[in-house]
């Protein structure tokens, strides 16, 4: 870490000299003394980590110096050091943005040391945060986080590039496991908002009664269990991106509240009266066809248009052809790196097996299958036997077996139930069969 630069503005040569010398005893500090405001301002662009400012200078008042520093360098902490205790002046200076107000006495040195310790901790934390942000940014670098060069994905990349260079609302649609959140993060961490928060909320995972408090926050005592004030996700994401996953699952009553927040750009915490301004980019995702949900009356039309923004459809893995192998190789490499093992590769039959499978769980399922295959592999080749699907519903496999029509039907229904997360209503519509037929088959355990 670089030395911490400290500027002392002090016209009393005796006091200035002694403070400079004392602080310089710490080799981590680079302490510079200025006896006029003018000489100090010439060096201000060196961005010191701390400024101690004598309140009475010959060429400018302490207040004027403080205001000028705050105008151009608002983040640099300024400690005002005065020869006398003056509560009114201290309050005024603190209001003007001074970090602290100290009087010159035998304790001043200790108090400056204490402030330096705090600043050093803050600098360490800032450095750590910056490092972590950098790592996250690298993690969500497009070339690393979004794999694939199939024609359908190339169309997605074109849209993603447009999304990165603007702050338009985004609606990402795609089956479960297609990587909607990965795309949302990749867009955020490659956009101008990358140093601001990315806050993700899965609407489907939060009970209906708690969603308002989760999104907008609550005041202490707003409801049973609200033991303290809590800020909501909108406030948390202020200045950054709020990712609302599974937006199609939001209750209609809540949809109207969300619409109002998006229109007014302000929230009111549950149990509170104050209005809080919020400004964040919204990215929504769903596995549902929202337009269809609007037609069915399950989703508000006005909210739909408010959220539609730039729509990005993520294709299912089965439509991505050779991307399956690219992704599989990527997951193998990732597994080998994380587990510190030698390189593994896919045998031609195992590649064929991966390409033939329907992937109802999409990329998420592929990752799980590959990780299991890596574990099962005996040497550096992953054979087809190492590739095990959680439920062997591959249509290819189904058709290769000699079964009765009833068995084929059962397998087809099983396949669709897996694909649509056991959503019986959806499967009955897709296959144009009655819901009761499916429920009956489930009850009799024929599927």
């Amino acid at each position, binding site marked *: 870490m670089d030395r911490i630069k400290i500027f002392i503005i002090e016209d*009393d*040569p*005796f*006091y200035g*000299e*002694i403070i400079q010398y004392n602080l310089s005893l710490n080799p981590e500090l680079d302490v510079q003394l200025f006896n006029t405001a003018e000489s100090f301002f010439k060096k201000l662009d060196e961005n010191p980590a701390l400024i101690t400012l004598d309140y009475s200078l010959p060429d400018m008042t302490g207040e004027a110096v403080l205001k000028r520093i705050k105008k151009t360098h608002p983040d640099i902490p300024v400690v005002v050091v005065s*020869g*006398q205790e003056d509560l009114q002046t201290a309050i005024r200076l603190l209001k003007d943005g001074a970090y602290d107000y100290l009087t010159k*006495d*035998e304790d001043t040195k200790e108090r400056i040391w204490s402030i330096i310790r705090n600043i050093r901790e803050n600098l360490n934390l800032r450095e750590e945060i910056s490092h972590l942000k950098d790592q996250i940014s690298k993690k969500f670098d497009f070339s690393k986080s979004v794999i694939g060069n199939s024609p359908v994905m190339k169309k997605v990349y074109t849209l993603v590039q447009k999304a990165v260079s603007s702050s338009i609302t985004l609606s990402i649609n795609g089956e479960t496991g297609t990587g909607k959140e990965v795309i949302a993060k990749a867009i955020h961490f490659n956009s101008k908002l990358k140093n601001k928060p990315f806050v993700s909320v899965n609407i489907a995972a939060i009970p209906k009664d708690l969603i308002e408090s989760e999104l907008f926050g609550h005041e202490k005592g707003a409801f049973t269990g609200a033991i303290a004030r809590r800020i909501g996700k909108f406030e948390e994401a202020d200045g950054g991106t709020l990712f609302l996953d599974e937006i199609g699952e939001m209750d209609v009553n809540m949809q109207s509240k969300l619409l109002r927040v998006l229109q007014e750009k302000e929230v009111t915490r549950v149990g509170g009266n104050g209005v809080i301004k919020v400004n964040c980019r919204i990215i929504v995702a769903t596995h549902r066809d929202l337009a269809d949900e609007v037609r069915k009356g399950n989703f508000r039309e006005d909210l739909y248009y408010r959220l539609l923004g730039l729509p990005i459809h993520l294709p299912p893995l089965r439509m991505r052809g050779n991307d399956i192998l690219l992704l599989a190789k990527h997951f193998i490499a990732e597994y080998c790196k994380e587990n510190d093992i030698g390189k593994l590769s896919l045998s031609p039959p195992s590649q064929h097996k991966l390409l033939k499978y329907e992937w109802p769980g999409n990329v998420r399922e592929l990752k799980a299958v590959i990780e299991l295959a890596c574990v099962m592999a005996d040497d550096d080749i992953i054979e087809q036997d190492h590739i095990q699907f959680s439920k062997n519903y591959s249509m290819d496999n189904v058709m290769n077996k000699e079964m009765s029509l009833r068995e084929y039907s059962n397998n087809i229904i099983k396949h669709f139930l897996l694909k649509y997360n056991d959503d019986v209503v959806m499967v009955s519509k897709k296959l144009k069969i009655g819901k009761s037929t499916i429920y009956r088959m489930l009850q009799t355990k024929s599927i």
Partner: protein
Amino acid sequence: MTNYNTTTMEEKLYNLEQIELMSGGNSLFVEKMVNLFIELTPELMNRIKTGLIESDYLEIKSAAHKMKPSIDMMGIGKLKNEIRNIEKLALEHADVMTLNNAINYLDSILNQVMLQLKNRDKEGLN
């Protein structure tokens, strides 16, 4: 009310503990600060005396204010409150006699301190 008793030459009027502590054990630095004090104090004292002659209370207050940290750092206990008192008297435009007495006392003690500081090596004082 300040008791302006004179002091005997034998009484040590300063205490360098604070500066020694801040020097981190560097005696050269302590020496440098002592010399700086001896060099700067007469000028500030003159400003106070001139201010008194010219009834320039602002000048007295300003010079006393500047003298305060060095008096504290040099551990001149007899003047710790006195220098603050002069600053206050100047701010309040106190009567000349009161201010005169206070300034004379300050001058007298400072002269003794500087004499002691200059002779400290000879007398084996610290």
